C-alpha cells in the first residue's frame, strides 16, 4: 500500500515536471524564430538542472527527470515544426548537456549550505563556471554535429548560438535555482533586505533605461555596477535576479530590429543577440566572483568565530578543572593537617617527634598554598575575583604583608625593610594587593633571604604606584626573566652558586603558581608586573597598580565568591583571614 502510494507520488511528480518543462520548451520555441533556431532550449535546460540538483535524491528519480526532459523538449521541437530527426537530436543534446552539468556539480559535492566547513571552498564560482561553460560545450557539440550530419550547414554558427544561450541559462537560472534558500528569502523579508532589494531593482531599472535611451552613447558598462551592488547586498539571489532582469532587457532590445548604438549598430540581429549574451555572461561571471568572495569571507569569519568560541570553552574547561583539582586536593590535605594538629596535642612528644610532625604539617601547608593559589588563578582567569578596590595606604599594606610572611619558618632569619613614602596610596583591592606583596615577599625570602636584607619600596610613576621587592640574591638569569611570572617556573637561579648551596637544597626554590598569581592579580586590577635582576647585586620584582580610581569607573558589584573570615558573618573573635598568611598553623583559628 505504501509502495503503491509512493509510486503514485512519483508519477505525480514526474507529470508535474513534464508539464513545467514542456510548457517552458514550447514557449521558448514559439518565441524564437524558425524551426532550426537551436538557441531555444536554454531556459528548459537550466530549469531541469535546478530540479535535478534540488529535488532528486535517488538515481531512479534523476533518470526519470532526464527522460521527462527528453520527452518534453522532443515534443516541443516537433510542435515547433522541426523535422522528427532534428527534434530527436536536439532533445538528446539537451539531455546530454543537463546530465553533464549535473555530474560536474555533483562531482564537487556542492551543497550551498556547507561552505562553512571548508573556508577555501569558492564553490559557487568554480562550480557554476565549470557547469555553465563545459556542459553547454557538450550540448552544443552534439547539436551542431547532428545538425550538420542532417545537412544543415554552418557548424560553427549553430554551435556558438547553442553554447552562448545555454551558458547564459546555466549562469543565470541555475544560481538562482540553487541559491534560493529559506535564509535568502527570509533576508528579503527583513527591513534591510527589502530595502536592498528595492534599491537593487531601482539601480538596474535606472541604468537600463539610461543605457537604452541614450542612443548616441554606448553606455552599456553602466549596468555592471548595478549588478555588482545587487550581488554585494543580496548575494547569489541578488546577482541572479539582477542579471536575469538586465539580461532579459538587453537580449530583448538586441532582438528588436530598431538600431541600438549600444549594441553595435551595423551587426545583424543574430550577432547583436550574441553580443548581448556575451555581455550578460561577462557580468554574470563578475557577479558570481563577488558572491564567491563574500561567501568565502563569511565562511572564514564563521570558522574564526567557532574557533574563538572553542578557545573560550577550552579556557573555561581548564579553569573548571583547576578548581575541581584544587578542591579535591584540599579535602585529604585538611585531614592530614587536622591529624598533625591533633598529634601535637595528644601526647607529650619528644623534640624530634615534634619536628617530624611540624615538617609534615609544613609540607601539607605548602600544598594548601599551592591549591589555594591555583584556585585563585582559576578565579582570576575567568574574571571571577570579585575585586573590591578602595584607596589603600601603601605603608600599611606593606606592614601587613610583612606580618603575613613573618609566620613563614624561613622568615626567621630574614631581614625585611620597608621604605614607602608616607601618604602614598593605591586604588586596589586590599586583600588581593596584600596577597600580591605577600607572594612577592615569600618568593624573595625563599630565594634570597640568606644573601642579605630584603627591601620593600614604593614610589609613584605617572598614574601608577610601583611597589618593589628588592633582594641581593642570585637573581634570575636573563633567559628566565620572561618566564618568571608563568606558573610552575623555578624563579631561583639554578646556577653554580646556588647549587653549591648557601641556602640549602635546590628544591627550596619557589616552584609554583605564586608569581603567576601575582601577575593575574595585578592585571585584574589594571596593573602590571615585571622583574629586573643583576645577580648578587640587586633583583627587583615590581608591581604597578593604579594610584587613583579610574574616572567614571564602572565598579562591578562585589559578588559573594570571595573567601572571607566566617567571623565577619557569624561574629566571634576575628580570626586571621583564612589565607592571608602563608603559613597559618593549625591551632590558630
Amino acid at each position: 500500500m505504501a509502495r503503491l502510494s509512493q509510486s503514485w507520488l512519483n508519477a505525480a511528480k514526474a507529470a508535474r515536471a513534464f508539464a513545467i518543462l514542456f510548457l517552458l520548451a514550447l514557449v521558448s520555441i514559439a518565441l524564437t524564430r524558425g524551426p532550426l533556431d537551436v538557441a531555444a532550449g536554454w531556459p528548459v535546460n537550466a530549469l531541469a538542472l535546478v530540479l535535478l540538483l534540488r529535488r532528486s535524491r535517488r538515481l531512479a528519480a534523476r533518470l526519470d527527470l532526464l527522460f521527462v526532459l527528453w520527452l518534453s523538449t522532443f515534443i516541443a521541437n516537433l510542435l515547433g515544426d522541426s523535422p522528427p530527426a532534428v527534434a530527436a537530436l536536439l532533445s538528446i543534446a539537451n539531455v546530454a548537456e543537463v546530465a553533464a552539468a549535473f555530474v560536474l556539480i555533483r562531482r564537487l559535492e556542492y551543497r550551498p549550505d556547507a561552505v562553512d566547513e571548508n573556508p577555501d571552498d569558492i564553490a559557487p564560482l568554480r562550480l557554476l563556471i565549470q557547469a555553465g561553460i563545459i556542459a553547454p560545450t557538450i550540448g552544443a557539440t552534439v547539436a551542431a554535429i547532428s545538425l550538420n550530419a542532417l545537412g544543415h550547414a554552418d557548424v560553427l554558427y549553430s554551435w556558438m548560438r547553442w553554447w552562448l544561450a545555454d551558458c547564459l541559462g546555466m549562469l543565470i537560472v541555475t544560481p538562482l535555482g540553487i541559491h534560493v534558500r529559506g535564509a535568502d528569502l527570509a533576508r528579503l523579508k527583513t527591513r534591510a533586505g527589502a530595502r536592498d532589494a528595492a534599491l537593487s531593482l531601482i539601480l538596474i531599472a535606472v541604468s537600463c533605461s539610461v543605457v537604452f535611451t541614450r542612443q548616441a552613447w554606448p553606455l552599456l558598462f553602466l549596468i555592471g555596477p548595478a549588478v555588482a551592488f545587487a550581488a554585494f547586498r543580496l548575494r547569489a539571489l541578488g546577482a541572479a535576479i539582477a542579471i536575469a532582469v538586465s539580461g532579459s532587457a538587453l537580449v530583448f532590445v538586441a532582438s528588436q530590429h530598431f538600431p541600438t548604438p549600444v549594441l553595435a549598430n551595423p551587426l545583424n540581429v543574430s550577432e547583436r543577440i550574441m553580443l548581448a549574451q556575451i555581455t550578460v555572461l561577462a557580468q554574470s561571471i563578475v557577479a558570481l566572483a563577488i558572491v564567491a568572495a563574500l561567501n568565502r569571507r563569511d565562511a572564514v569569519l564563521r570558522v574564526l568565530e567557532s574557533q574563538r568560541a572553542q578557545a573560550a570553552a577550552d579556557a573555561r574547561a581548564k579553569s573548571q578543572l583547576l578548581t575541581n583539582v584544587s578542591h579535591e586536593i584540599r579535602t585529604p590535605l585538611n585531614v592530614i593537617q587536622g591529624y598533625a594538629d591533633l598529634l601535637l596535642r595528644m601526647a607529650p612528644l619528644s623534640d624530634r617527634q615534634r619536628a617530624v610532625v611540624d615538617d609534615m604539617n609544613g609540607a601539607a601547608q605548602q600544598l594548601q598554598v599551592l591549591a589555594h593559589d591555583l584556585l585563585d588563578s582559576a578565579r582570576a582567569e575567568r574574571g571571577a575575583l570579585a575585586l573590591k578596590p578602595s584607596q589603600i595606604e601603601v605603608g600599611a599594606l606593606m606592614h601587613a604583608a610583612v606580618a603575613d610572611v613573618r609566620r613563614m619558618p624561613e622568615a626567621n632569619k630574614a631581614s625585611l625593610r620597608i621604605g614607602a613614602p608616607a601618604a602614598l596610596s593605591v586604588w586596589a583591592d586590599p586583600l588581593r594587593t596584600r596577597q600580591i606583596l605577600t607572594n612577592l615577599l615569600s618568593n624573595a625570602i625563599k630565594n634570597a633571604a640568606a644573601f642579605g636584607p630584603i627591601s620593600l619600596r614604593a614610589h609613584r610613576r605617572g598614574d601608577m604606584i610601583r611597589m618593589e621587592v628588592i633582594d641581593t640574591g642570585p637573581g634570575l638569569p636573563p633567559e628566565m626573566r620572561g618566564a618568571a611570572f608563568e606558573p610552575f617556573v623555578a624563579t631561583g637561579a639554578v646556577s653554580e652558586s646556588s647549587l653549591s648551596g648557601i641556602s640549602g637544597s635546590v628544591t627550596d626554590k619557589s616552584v609554583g603558581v605564586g608569581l603567576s598569581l601575582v601577575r593575574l592579580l595585578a592585571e585584574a586590577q589594571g596593573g602590571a608586573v615585571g622583574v629586573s635582576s643583576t645577580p648578587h647585586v640587586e633583583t627587583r620584582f615590581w608591581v604597578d597598580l593604579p594610584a587613583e580610581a579610574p574616572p567614571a569607573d564602572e565598579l562591578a558589584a562585589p559578588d559573594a565568591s570571595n573567601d572571607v573570615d566566617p567571623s565577619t558573618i557569624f561574629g566571634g573573635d576575628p580570626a586571621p583571614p583564612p589565607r592571608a598568611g602563608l603559613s597559618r598553623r593549625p591551632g590558630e583559628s
Partner: protein
Amino acid sequence: MDEGARGLVLEDNPFMRRLLIELLREMGVRDVAAVTNTPQALREMDANMFDFALVDVGLEQESGLDFIRNIRLDRANPQRRMPMVVVSGQSQKAVIEAARDAGANDFLIKPVSVAALESRLSRAIVSPPAFIETPDYYGPDRRRTWNTRYEGLERRRKLRL
C-alpha cells in the same frame, strides 16, 4: 567541654569523619554518632537526643545546609534548637552566608584544629543565641552587629527603595 555531651557528626568523607571523631574525643566528647548522609542522621536523631551537631556542607548527594534548614523548620522536631556548626572546605562569602541563613550556629573552615573546634562549639552550647522565628527562618538570631547609628529610613537593604 562537658564530658557527658553527645555529638552528631554528619560527614561523608571517611577520613574527615574519623578525624572529627578524634578531635571531639580529644576535647573529651566520647559519645559521638557519626553518619554519612541525611537519612542516617535523621534516624539517629529519632533515637537519641544530641547536644550538638557538626555538619559538612558538601555531602555527596545533598547539602548539609538543607539538613540544617529542615531540622530548624520542622516544628515537630524536639531537637530543632540543637546547636549545629557547619564544617566546610570552602570559605566563600556566599557559602558562609548560606550557612547562616540555613540556621547554623557557626562555621568552621577546614583544616579544623582542636582549638577552633573547642571555641566554636563551646560558644554555641554554653552561650546559645536567642532563637528567631519568621515565616521563612527559624534559628539563631543572625544579627551580629548592632549598628544603631544608621540614619536612613529603612536599615534593611532589602526594604530600602
